[in-house]
């Protein structure tokens, strides 16, 4: 865009909001030159190792570290007694021991940590630690944990949270009623970079920690409490993050490495291997859901009744918030007059579960979208028609009583999906397009095609009254004859491209091309977590607000010097310009020696807690919507599924970076495909049976089809630039759309994801 004014032209700053400039970290990542947290190195550093419980539930009766301590090269072997502060941590409740004291509640729970001068020495010493256990009966079923006669795993019982939602009539009458029991298996975030970090003691009792995480400040709070230090003594810097998807919201090695570093006086590095990583982070809550949908004969929803059980595993993590989401979003993107939902999050002796992309909303969507298809069948309507008849829109009142006050284009998403061309029948020439792919299982015989639709809803940003904010500092000065901006935040770049977005925002607001994003650390205030699809909204909002303050200060500085009013001035393409006279000066000259430096703490509008009895409350700040159409070919003879196409329409409010939006939609859809047909952590009696990428299957390029993606930009007036969080919604509708398509092809009920060949043959 150019504006021609008074014969002089200012070129709009390139690479601003709405464009897709190259990522600052892109080239290095593609070339393998980017330093991830596992590449951290320090002269003289020690290597940490973690001894973990082999039992899902046991009482510790003794720990003998003497043999381990005696190993040459070992500098420290620490157990719970060596934790100087509170031996508990947790995102929402501090219920998880840093190192187990009396009881272990899941297999893989840390019991002791070792530091040695070589990783292999640390591993060997670790194996010499003798721990004696009295094994206890594990609690492994979430429904039993709530209603059954089982051991209480924590004081106060096994219910982490029960969230009821009540709206309208509680004993409604409907012409058509469909019910179902649905299950969602435990999914892993499967990020590629395992947990790792480096703790460096400062020689004065404090520590600097370099770590791959999602939320520096909440890590810091928990570490400080465990170490008995002040926040000034525990400084965190974000190291290169190899993916997160929620799995880095909880602590892994942070306290352990810091503890070892302080104890030994030496830098300590810890890196999990893949197997340990499966024990070292939380997973997606497995769910069991009982749904009843009632409708009029013509398919208008009368009521939804549901009981949802989410297995939180051994410790609370973010179970409370996951329960809140599953409950409040439990009817999906539909207008339902009468609702009765009960959602429980429980303690069991399964691996702890917490945040994962789409959390709470993913599980519920498999339930309610399966039900919508059943209802469509019962009413003789098409899957899209039943959804359109019940689609929510702007102004719809949610089951919580909250009015949706910005675009909710559910019907339009469906219309656009239906308008997309359907893929041609599979070509038998290219095996990769057929079920089984290059396994040579079919050349087209026995293959049946099915089509399925699903829509999903997700809350964006933190909900339920949480004081959600982000802090940003923006500094503008002339550097080397050019105007240059540095941006400082504590927002974790986990691979999603936030650093690019922040640069774009500065270019748009200050007309400055050269933008440096400083390393993210705790020397500035919190940015909140890189989760809940919130960083573009929150840290983007904070950076924009700080940039506007800088612009305000700069323009009044310039206005005074040039005897103009600030209202007539603007910044573009490195120039100061006026509406009437075009370019007035190069920005670098206006700046001179001056420096503009502003820090802002930015909040979205407040939300409310849910009423604990009725679930009423304006709990969410924004809703995001996506819809998928899946086309599958199923080899009914062998039970193999090929997802032939997976098309998506999503409203993103405003695409700050269109390429990043498409990337999020592709990635989220792939993760949904994984849950639909292959991804599951197999647990048995609380023990993970497939803690490796050989046995835990994630989709490869051969499993993921090309996608048609249609992005709507219906601005949300409450959000910066009108944007709507992008990252999670595409994960939510992908899974039920694929399963619906498999049902359409096979006629099978398919009440559980992932769907496996076993369920089809």
């Amino acid at each position, binding site marked *: 865009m150019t504006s021609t004014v008074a014969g002089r032209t200012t070129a709009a700053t390139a690479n601003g909001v709405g464009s897709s400039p190259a990522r600052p970290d892109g080239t290095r990542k593609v070339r393998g030159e980017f330093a991830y947290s596992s590449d951290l190195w320090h002269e003289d550093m020690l290597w940490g190792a973690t001894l973990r419980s*082999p039992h899902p539930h046991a009482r510790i009766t003794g720990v003998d570290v003497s043999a381990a301590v005696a190993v040459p090269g070992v500098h420290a072997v620490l157990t719970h007694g060596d934790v100087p502060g509170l031996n508990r941590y947790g995102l929402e409740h501090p219920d998880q021991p840093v190192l187990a004291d009396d009881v272990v509640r899941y297999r893989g729970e840390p019991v002791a940590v070792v530091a040695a001068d070589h990783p*292999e020495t640390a*591993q060997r010493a670790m194996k010499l630690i003798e721990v004696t256990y009295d094994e206890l009966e594990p609690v492994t079923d979430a429904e039993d944990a709530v209603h059954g006669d089982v051991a209480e795993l924590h004081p106060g019982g096994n219910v982490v949270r029960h969230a009821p939602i009540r709206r309208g009539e509680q004993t409604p009458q409907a012409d058509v009623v469909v019910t179902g029991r649905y299950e969602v298996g435990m999914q892993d975030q499967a990020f590629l970079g395992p947990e790792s970090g480096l703790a460096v003691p400062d020689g004065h009792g404090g520590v600097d920690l370099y770590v791959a995480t999602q939320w520096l400040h909440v890590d810091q709070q928990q570490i400080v409490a465990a170490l008995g230090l002040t926040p000034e003594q525990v400084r965190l810097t974000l190291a290169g993050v190899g993916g997160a998807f929620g799995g880095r919201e909880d602590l892994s090695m942070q306290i352990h490495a810091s503890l070892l570093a302080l104890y030994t006086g030496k830098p300590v590095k810890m890196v999990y291997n893949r197997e340990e990583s499966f024990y070292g982070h939380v997973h997606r809550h497995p769910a069991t859901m009982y749904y009843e949908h009632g409708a009029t004969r013509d398919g208008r929803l009368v009521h939804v009744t549901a009981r949802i059980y989410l297995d939180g595993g051994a410790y609370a993590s973010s179970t409370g918030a996951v329960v809140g989401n599953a409950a409040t979003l439990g009817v999906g993107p539909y207008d339902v007059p009468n609702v009765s939902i009960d959602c429980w999050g429980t303690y069991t002796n399964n691996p702890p579960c917490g945040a994962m992309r789409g959390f709470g909303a993913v599980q519920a969507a498999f339930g309610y979208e399966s039900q919508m298809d059943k209802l469509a069948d019962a009413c003789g309507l098409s899957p899209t028609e039943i959804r359109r008849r019940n689609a929510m829109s702007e102004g719809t009142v949610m089951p919580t009583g909250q009015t949706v006050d910005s675009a909710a284009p559910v019907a339009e998403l469906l219309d656009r999906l239906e308008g997309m061309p359907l893929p041609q029948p599979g070509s038998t020439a290219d095996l*990769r397009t057929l079920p*089984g*792919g*290059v*396994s*040579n*299982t*079919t*050349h087209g*015989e*026995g293959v049946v095609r099915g089509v399925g639709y699903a829509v999903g809803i997700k809350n964006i940003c933190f909900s339920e009254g949480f004081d959600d904010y982000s802090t940003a500092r923006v500094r503008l000065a002339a550097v080397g004859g050019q105007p240059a901006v540095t941006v400082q935040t504590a927002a974790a770049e986990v691979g999603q491209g936030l650093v690019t977005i922040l640069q774009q925002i500065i270019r748009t607001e200050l007309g400055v091309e050269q933008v440096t994003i400083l390393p993210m650390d705790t020397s500035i205030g919190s940015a909140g977590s890189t989760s809940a699809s919130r960083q573009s909204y929150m840290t983007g909002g904070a950076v924009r607000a700080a940039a506007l303050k800088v612009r305000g200060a700069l323009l009044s500085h310039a206005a005074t010097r040039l005897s103009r009013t600030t209202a007539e001035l603007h910044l573009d393409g490195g120039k100061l310009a006026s509406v009437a006279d075009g370019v007035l000066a190069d920005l670098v000259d206006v700046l001179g020696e001056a420096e503009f430096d502003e820090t802002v703490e930015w909040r979205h509008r407040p939300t409310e807690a849910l009423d604990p009895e009725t679930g009423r409350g304006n709990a969410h700040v924004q809703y995001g919507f996506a819809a998928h159409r899946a086309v599958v070919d199923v*080899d009914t*003879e*062998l*039970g*193999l599924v*090929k997802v032939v196409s997976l098309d998506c329409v999503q409203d993103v409010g405003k695409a700050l970076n269109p390429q990043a939006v498409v990337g999020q939609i592709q990635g989220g859809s792939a993760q949904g495909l994984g849950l639909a*047909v*292959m991804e599951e952590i*197999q647990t*048995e009696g609380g*023990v993970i*049976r*497939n803690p490796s990428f*050989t*046995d835990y*299957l994630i*989709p*490869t390029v*051969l*499993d993921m089809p090309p996608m048609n993606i249609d992005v709507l930009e219906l601005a949300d007036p409450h959000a910066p630039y009108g944007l709507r969080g992008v990252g999670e919604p595409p994960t939510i509708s992908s899974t039920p759309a694929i399963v619906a398509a498999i049902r359409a092809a096979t006629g099978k009920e398919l009440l559980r994801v992932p769907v*496996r*060949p*076993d369920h089809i*043959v």
Partner: protein
Amino acid sequence: MIPFEYRRADDVSAAVDTVARNPTASFLGGGTNLVDHLKLGVATPEHLVDVSRLPLDDIEPGPDGGLRIGATARNSDTAADPDVRSRYPVLAEALLSGASGQLRNLATVGGNLLQRTRCAYFQDVTTPCNKREPGTGCSALEGYQRYHAILGASRHCVATHPSDMAVAMVALDATVHVQGPNGSRSLPAEELHRLPGDEPERDTVLEHGELITAVELPPLPFAANSAYRKVRDRASYAFALVSVAAALDVDDAGTVRDVRIAFGGLAHKPWRAHRAEAALRGGPATDDRAARAAEAELENAEPLAGNAFKIPMARGALTATLRRLSPLPTTR
């Protein structure tokens, strides 16, 4: 991982001697299976004799017109060999359906044959497993069973052999050449792997110190009409739930003159389907007869609670494979 000594062998008999004389020594091929087991603590050899650079990697015509594949030929090279591809496509397909390109570049014929089960309990040293620690019990009997056996298992072990390549070799009537401390011997590939019986710790009939030197494929002209099909949870890079290797010889009228069939994923060894072969010979290769042949083979199947799906899956896989190899119009 326990400390071990590593030595690269440059001579077959010295390698055999070193390992045969030392019960804590092991051959090392490409290491793609054994090194994993070292890390997991499943294998604890104190001496590794690396045989992967022995001059045993030739693929050349055998004396009787077959094909002799050296034991250290890499899986990628074997799959790419022009003779293998044209004369024994089932073997090339089986190899290419296994593992990943990177792994196949390292994996050897000998190591592939002797790779061990993927049973989750076998790989988890904290659980009882008769194969890893005889007498401790079989965790899979009450556990996770999707990948386990439905044929020829015992109450001591219900594991399956994971190799794809071996299934093709068994179907092709291959011969395995072995060099031991007391000389060399040859045995049919079908007899290399054992059923678990009450000694599940023994995967094969080989004695400690016996080195596989080559696998020989007989001249089997109709093997040019052969295929490998693998049913798995993901389109690539996953082990078989069920697989079929088949070669089919039909006359112009569509009558089966001869056929070779072996199943993977069903048993403790690649399962040569003699009953199915007999049921097919002499009649047309229709879907119906293929299904009935599979049923004849699976008549004695004893599925576990968690893997009954393998019966219809194996039937489907055999039907689909033969349909592909048969010139008859499909009858579905």
